[in-house]
């Protein structure tokens, strides 16, 4: 309980907190100046975000209700026509399924690996710690397009993976990795794992620094092995960080574009294409249909929002 400021000691807690949020009149001038300074710092960034992010979002929402050819757009009849159309769009359904396959397989594996790696690299007795950390983080510094092209070359029919597989006797004949639906999807997932695991690991490493070492030692003294300590002591304390990375990865995977576009070009037969890649095609490759494209982007937004809300609901146990 905070000390009461010149009030009767019997004030209820509710009243106290209200009093606390509203400062006494004597310091109004100072407080006002303080909050003014705060706002001055906030305004530039807020204005830029408002102008560059929120205003286009509102425009996109309006656009998603419109239909027509080229710039000659008018409000659709019924207004939700573009959203209604999606129900009959086989390619959209396919790309949606594919994107969720990427999400469901890739995100848990990646976060699990990142957790384990972070825990290993947090060992105070480990030597060359900086080297390992840098090596695992380095893929995140590689451009998305460049790594996608390297993976495409590696998994070509006459590529490195087939050469090594045949030399070591794993493969009898070259596998057409990118020519079959599931192997093409797996190559994309593999690429994502390589590119993003280190990135998430850094978040966990940062989170691990905030964990009191004495809690781990206490667990050890109580007879918990490394696995149990990790599961019952480390993970609960990392929960906010895990939540953050889960939301970011979900968001990132639902907006996946570069890998689909550059690594497989959506093939074979659109089966490795993501929603964002389809969105691009609808806007720029095909005969442009910006109203429909805006509607699709809003569906992605809604999906991200729902998934993030669900994750927060499940993962955030703070009061």
């Amino acid at each position, binding site marked *: 309980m905070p000390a009461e400021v010149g009030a009767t000691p019997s004030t209820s807690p509710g009243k106290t907190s209200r009093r606390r949020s509203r400062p006494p009149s004597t310091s109004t001038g100072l407080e006002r100046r303080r909050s003014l300074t705060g706002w001055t710092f906030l305004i530039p960034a807020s204005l830029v975000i408002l102008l560059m992010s929120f205003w286009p979002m509102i425009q996109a929402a309006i656009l998603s209700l419109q239909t027509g*050819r*080229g*710039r000659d757009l008018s409000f659709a009849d019924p207004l939700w026509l573009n959203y209604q159309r999606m129900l009959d769009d*086989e390619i959209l359904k396919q790309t949606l399924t594919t994107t969720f396959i990427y999400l469901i397989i890739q995100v848990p594996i990646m976060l699990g690996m990142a957790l384990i790696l972070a825990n290993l690299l947090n060992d105070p007795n480990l030597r060359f710690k900086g080297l390992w950390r840098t090596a695992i983080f380095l893929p995140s510094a590689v451009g998305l397009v460049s790594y996608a092209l390297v993976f495409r070359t590696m998994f070509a029919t006459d590529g490195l993976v087939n050469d090594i597989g045949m030399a070591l006797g794993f493969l009898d004949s070259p596998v057409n990795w*990118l020519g079959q639906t599931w192997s093409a999807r797996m190559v994309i997932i593999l690429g994502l794992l390589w590119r993003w695991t280190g990135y998430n690991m850094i978040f966990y490493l940062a989170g691990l620094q905030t964990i009191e070492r004495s809690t781990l030692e206490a667990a050890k003294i109580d007879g918990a092995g490394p696995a149990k300590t990790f599961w019952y002591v480390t993970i609960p304390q990392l929960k906010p960080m895990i939540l953050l990375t889960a939301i970011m990865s979900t968001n990132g995977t639902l907006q996946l574009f570069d890998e689909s576009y550059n690594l497989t070009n959506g093939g074979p037969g659109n089966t490795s294409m993501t929603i964002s890649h389809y969105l691009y095609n609808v806007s720029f490759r095909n005969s442009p249909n910006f109203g429909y494209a805006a509607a699709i982007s809003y569906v992605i937004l809604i999906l991200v929002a729902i998934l993030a809300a669900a994750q927060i609901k499940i993962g955030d146990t703070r009061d």
Partner: protein
Amino acid sequence: MTTFRKFTAGAAVLTLAAALSACSSSSSGGGDDTSGSSSSASGGGTLSVWCWDPNFNIYAMQAAEKIYQQDHPDFSLDITEVSWDDLQTNLTTLAQSNQLDQLPDIFLMQNNAYQKNVVNYPDLFSDYTDSGVDFSQFPDSVVAYSTVDGVNYGLPFDNGTAIQAVRTDILADAGYTVDDFTDITWDQFITLGEDVLAKTGQPMLTGQAGSTDLIMMMLQSAGASLFDDAGNPTITDNDALNAAIDVYTRLVKSGVLVEVNSWDEYINTIVNSNTAGVINGVWISASIQSAPDQSGLWAVTNLPKLDGVAGATNYSANGGSSWAISSNADYALAADFLNSTFAGSTELYDTILPASGALANWIPAGQSAVYAEPQEFYGGQAIYALVVDFATKVPSNNTGVYYYEARDAVGVAITAILNGTDPSAALEEAQQTVEFAMGG
């Protein structure tokens, strides 16, 4: 403390001001890029150009600039290299946001994308009606790509005439010559190809899986496309398409055509001698000639034609591009420049052909001596004169506004058919995909 706070508040306001002024200055700076519209119409002045490929299109533009400068010393070009994908994105974005004053005077456009862009965004273009360009000096099939409702929107440049190039040494191993592959049908081609494969182990063709280039070439060789004259998709009940897909399936199943996954792999099959032949637009010649050790081993001939399809020929095209004059152009200057170079200068075409392999669509250029010179790489064949002759025989067809949707849908259908799906069911689905896209 107070002074410090004042200072920080002031700094924050300054940042804000700087951010806002940065916004405004960048937008006004962008407007200055288009200098073309302000130039005089007397032949002097600068034209801005967007196109891709420094060794090909940009080189040709620079050569044209030099030629035009002979009579107009004050003239210059401001060429910006923009890849086709980016160029299309730029055009769509500018048109959609009505920022047409950002357009260059002249830009290059893929022939296949012309119908789509002209129909969706007519205000990107100036038409060629008052340009003085004589379009009868270009092959009808090439002009047709960039003609909408009888109005010309493009000056054909990059030649997309299809050729069949074969490795004479590999064919000789199997006991054949290039003549055996000239003026034949696809049935004969497959029979010959199976024999070549059996004797040498080499396929006759390679291609990118899921790519419809070969199918589209077969269609155009019969004057067919994926749309009827009214623009409705004709993926089902299309005799030429059925025949083309039947041929393609047999090519793949017999091993006469080997599918690879990416363009790089495709080029590698040619450069690494993993195929006995190539069928593509004549621009593929640049890739073929990138393997100097194969000099003298190639020969060029026409394509096989479809059996039992009305209007089938041995001639087709794949790709190619044309120059568009934008709606933001100094029209008089741009039209005069293009008309006196790309549609009127044999000197230009004689310069760029040997240096870059850029082949003319302008028929008078084909009569020049440079075109008739034997090409050492092709065993002394005068392939350029040959291809210019092919070009005049290519049937016209209707690309269609929804060309990319239809082509992709057919690509998906072919992948499904090769994996065992019933062709009519796969094509029905493709038809529905295109009809869906057109329904929005």
